[in-house]
């Protein structure tokens, strides 16, 4: 009996260790692939607030692209959005794309209104309904900022709440692409 329990236990531990190892290796390699992939703007589409698919590559290539991944209920995102709203004019030289996986359209709209995001000239708010962001970008830190510049090359990425002046420093006025 003791021998049966012993083998069953070893088998169970082996199974758990095996599962964890396989998962860690596959997730780690996905993450590394994503790190390389996002060095240039990935070819991925999210839904607009009207429900239409919008590809990230479809935006005006002559302007730097700032992607902000957020959630309306995240306090750090609220602060960051408030800062963006207060500095709306300084974002006129770039295309700002805010992406969220929140499924409440009402909450997302209210978030944009409360933080005066509609005052930014070139803003697009997109819904990641299929949770693609994490797969494509390898991580989904809320909030995170990705800044793409010339030839849609990744200039900088910030994970977690970030000062707006750091973002603005990457999009100099009338940047020549």
């Amino acid at each position: 009996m003791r021998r049966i329990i012993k083998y069953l236990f070893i088998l169970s531990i082996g199974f758990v260790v095996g599962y964890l190892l396989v998962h860690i290796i596959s997730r780690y390699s996905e993450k590394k692939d994503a790190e390389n992939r996002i060095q240039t703007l990935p070819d991925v589409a999210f839904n607009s607030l009207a429900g239409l698919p919008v590809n990230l590559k479809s935006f005006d290539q002559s302007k730097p692209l700032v992607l902000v991944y957020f959630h309306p209920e995240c306090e750090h995102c609220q602060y960051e959005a408030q800062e963006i709203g207060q500095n709306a004019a300084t974002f006129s030289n770039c295309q700002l794309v805010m992406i969220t996986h929140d499924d409440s359209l009402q909450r997302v709209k209210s978030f944009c209104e409360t933080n005066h995001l509609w005052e930014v000239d070139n803003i697009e708010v997109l819904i990641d309904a299929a949770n693609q962001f994490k797969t494509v970008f390898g991580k989904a830190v809320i909030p995170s900022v990705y800044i793409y510049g010339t030839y849609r090359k990744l200039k900088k990425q910030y994970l977690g709440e970030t000062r707006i002046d750091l973002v603005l420093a990457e999009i100099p006025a009338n940047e020549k692409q």
Partner: protein
Amino acid sequence: MNFIYNRYGFTTFSLLVLITALLALTIQILFVSEAIYYQSFGTQLDIVRINKIVDSANKYKWLSYAVLPVLILIRVFYTSIFLFIGIFFTELKAEFGKLFKIALLADFVYVLAGLVKLVILIFFREVNTLQDLQFQPLSVMELLNAKSIDPLFVYPLSLLNVFELGYFLVLAWLLVGVINEANEERTLRFGQSLKLVTTSYGSGLLLWVLVIMFITLNLS
């Protein structure tokens, strides 16, 4: 489990918690000032936001001391369980309470690690940010450039340290006494005990490291 209820067991546990808490408190008093928060987060956060972090840290710093006994109990319990299972499979005998006792005594190795860390911080390191406080003394991680290591491997590489090795050795040494006392017909040598600790507690440690890596990958 009698050990934890008797006076000797409770005194040992209390002493372990007290020394660990004192070490943490000393590090906090000596190195964790408000300035360290500004230096740690100032490169990415606004000052008003850092003020908020400082307020929260001050408000909840008692919490880390409050959970300390629970964390130590969980760690000791985890080690005891894996030792118990390992011994069960070898058909040797040992009371769980006695295994809990040796796991608790072996835990003092981590106190020694804390002391060495404190000495290194005081005499050999310049502490500017909170990251400077997060290191495991005499570990493989200390031989490498932290910036070039993927965050996923920081914890496992930090676990490969002199004190973890010491923990294995002390556990094996204490286990010899417990096993030989309970099994008069079979004696256990130190080498055999070390092998037993490596396969039993070692499996538990491997499982723990994998769980931490799994969580690290999935949370990011």
